[in-house]
């Protein structure tokens, strides 16, 4: 009885404090009102009409500094990079800015499509830089830096001049200069509601035909022989029991009617190399693999390349991880890394022993 009374008392006190005011009637006790600071922290999206855009500004010049420090190592000094991510800048003209249509998109022979060729809305750039960049430290740019980097990208694409200061006051003017602003269409049947064009009829209309539907089929496209093993041995990518086996693509294709090797024996599992496994797990944990592949160059050298050059030099590798470096494998600098010492040592040892998988 007294426990019940206490519970009621607690409820009454909570109600007095306004805590239960947020409860819905249908599902009492579930959910609460979000506080203004909670909403402010998470509600960061910016819409094409600039709803959600915080007040502020940033210059092209400032943007260039931020770009070189935080963006260029993945996106290239001029946004041209295709080393890691698709190129951002290029392929647009003064004429495109006038018309709002990127002419190169009409050419089927134009190589690649840059972000600036595609994006119709400047809000999209601001929003994504703000929410997701830099790639390994998203949401660490200040509002001024986001304006500045956006301004620098617009400048590289000749949308704004060198001395431009982008702000919430003038961003709508920039929108009116976006090279592909008139390049979008929603007149299609692939939005599953009536909110946009409302088109319902699909753009293809195949019919059910059962007999003599087409002339005899001719093979028009197939994978060339040189690509036979490009996806690894397909024998090891199919179940070893059932109606089919995978083709052994390490060998040339057998001629028609020639004997095919009997069902492949079950591939022996490779012995687990625990040390390598642990090191690679650490590389993933500390995002080293964002810039270095185990056996290929990405931004920086592959670990196999480092292992070759620095065999046995655990301390040297460790010092480079901690201090960063430039010039040994290329001109893109690696910033100093702040992972725990023990993890760095484990990684350095693994590299010095050959960086095996």
């Amino acid at each position: 009885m007294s426990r019940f009374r206490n519970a009621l008392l607690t409820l009454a006190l909570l109600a007095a404090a306004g805590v239960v005011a947020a409860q819905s009637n249908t599902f009492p006790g579930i959910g609460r009102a979000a506080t203004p600071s909670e909403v402010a922290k998470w509600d960061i999206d910016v819409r094409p009409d600039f709803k959600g855009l915080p007040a502020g500004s940033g210059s092209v010049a400032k943007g260039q500094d931020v770009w070189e420090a935080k963006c260029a190592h993945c996106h290239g000094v001029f946004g041209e990079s295709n080393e890691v991510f698709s190129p951002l800048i290029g392929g647009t003209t003064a004429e495109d800015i006038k018309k709002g249509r990127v002419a190169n998109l009409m050419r089927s022979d134009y190589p690649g499509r840059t972000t600036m060729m595609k994006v119709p809305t400047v809000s999209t750039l601001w929003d994504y830089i703000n929410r997701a960049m830099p790639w390994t430290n998203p949401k660490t740019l200040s509002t001024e830096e986001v304006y500045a980097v956006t301004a620098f990208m617009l400048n590289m694409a000749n949308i704004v001049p060198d001395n431009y200061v982008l702000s919430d006051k003038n961003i709508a003017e920039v929108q009116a200069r976006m090279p592909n602003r008139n390049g979008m269409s929603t007149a299609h049947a692939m939005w599953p509601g009536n909110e946009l064009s409302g088109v319902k009829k699909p753009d293809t209309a195949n019919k059910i035909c059962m007999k003599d539907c087409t002339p005899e089929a001719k093979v028009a496209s197939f994978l060339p022989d040189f690509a036979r093993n490009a996806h690894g041995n397909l024998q090891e990518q199919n179940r070893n029991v059932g109606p089919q086996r995978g083709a052994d693509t390490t060998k040339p294709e057998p001629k028609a009617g020639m004997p095919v090797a009997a069902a492949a024996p079950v591939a022996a599992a490779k012995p687990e190399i625990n040390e390598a496994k642990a090191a690679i797990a650490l590389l993933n944990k500390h995002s080293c693999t964002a810039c270095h592949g185990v056996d290929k160059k990405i931004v920086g050298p592959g670990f196999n390349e480092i292992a070759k050059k620095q065999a046995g030099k655990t301390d040297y590798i460790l010092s480079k991880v901690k201090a960063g470096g430039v010039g040994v494998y290329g001109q893109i600098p690696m910033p100093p890394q702040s992972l725990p010492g023990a993890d760095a040592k484990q990684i350095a040892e693994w590299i010095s022993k050959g960086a095996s998988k």
Partner: protein
Amino acid sequence: MNADNINSGRVQKAPENFLTPTGIKEVFAEGKKGRRDFIRNAFAAAAAGAAAPMAMAQGNPVPVEGGDPNILNLPEHTVGLGQGVAAEGYGKPSKFEANLQRRQSPGLTQTTQASVSFAPLQSLFGIVTPSGLHFERHHQGWWDIDPSKHRFMINGMVKKNMVFTMDEIMRLPSVSRFAFIECGANTATEWGNVAVPTVQYTHGMISCSEFTGVPLITLLQMAGADLKNGKFVLAEGGDGSSMTRTIPMSLITSGEVIVAYGQNGEMLRPENGYPLRLVVPGVQGVSWVKYLRRVEVGDKPYAAKDEAIHYMDLQPDGTHRQYTNLQEVKSVVTTPSGGQVLLDKGFYNITGLAWSGKGKIKRVDVSTDGGRNWRQARLETPVLSKALSRFNIDWVWDGKPAIIQSRARDDTGHVQPTYQQLRSVRGTRSIYHNNAIQSWLVQENGEVKNVQVS
């Protein structure tokens, strides 16, 4: 800037821009070079009218000395003691199933954190994808998030901005529904020509699971959402990319969109958004926001990065179709399929998957002569709306070259298009939403190849 001196597009990223025009030309050129040999290999014996003897190992050879040693000599597992319960606290597949892995397509991406892995459709049964083999698409790496610290927020055109804990979401009335999830860029490599060898790489960015969660409409009603003027909902992830996508309110008010925590009887796998993801049946995977932290009700679409830079379909006239969310009717034969070898002539069960983002699959037809003649396949139960459906059809292989295709029709009457039909409308640069009929060439030597027919 002058277009001529721009060095762009040398390496193209997934799932956008799989092949550069240069790469496509290269494949075409190599294809042309090898075509004569290829066709000779595939069709030579048939043309000569002399079916070469099938010397492939028999699956079930005639016993020589009194019978099959696998029967006559009792194996260890028949005469010994097996393992005890709970030897594996969370059971694993048989060690003989190690070939079934989700895999990356080599050269597709430079990093593993912004990449895709493909589900091994060639070896799966039924309609459910084992959770550990579910395809992956991450935009900024995956996380294993502590559910006790995960929060879900609703704001925008609502009477009351709200916050929920996982405990609270899981206390609400739940629904469980099967749904397929397909990346909008599934089969993107094949728009211009054949580019990858197996169904894992052509179609493996699709999976189907039973999802459990709370209809989003329930949560929006709790917050007093303006369902009349709020025509769009922004969904936002809690990971580094905090991916955002615009969801049509009509799909939410119909009760279809779920805020899900369960997948195939267990919690979501971390790679699939643990502890909370949006489930948007019929809509491409990018809208099924993982690590879901917030939805916002608004009166206009949001033009998020994956709505205004990627996941737009380039048309021949140079415009992009924007907000192309729906996955249209599609099917594929999973066995026999590219990269497999048939063991012998004789009976085979051709099997495959069909799906439509608009509803149920009504019918699947299968051709073994490259689309000239067709037979209706059996649809296996259950046939569910916006879920994968399994079809089967009997086939006796006579050892001659055959080109296998499947063609699906959904309950809106939409029939899966041929490549010719699709390209005549959308060209070859769309990247997204390739739902064309797939062809597999079974060659005389039993090896199956990915081909496109004219």
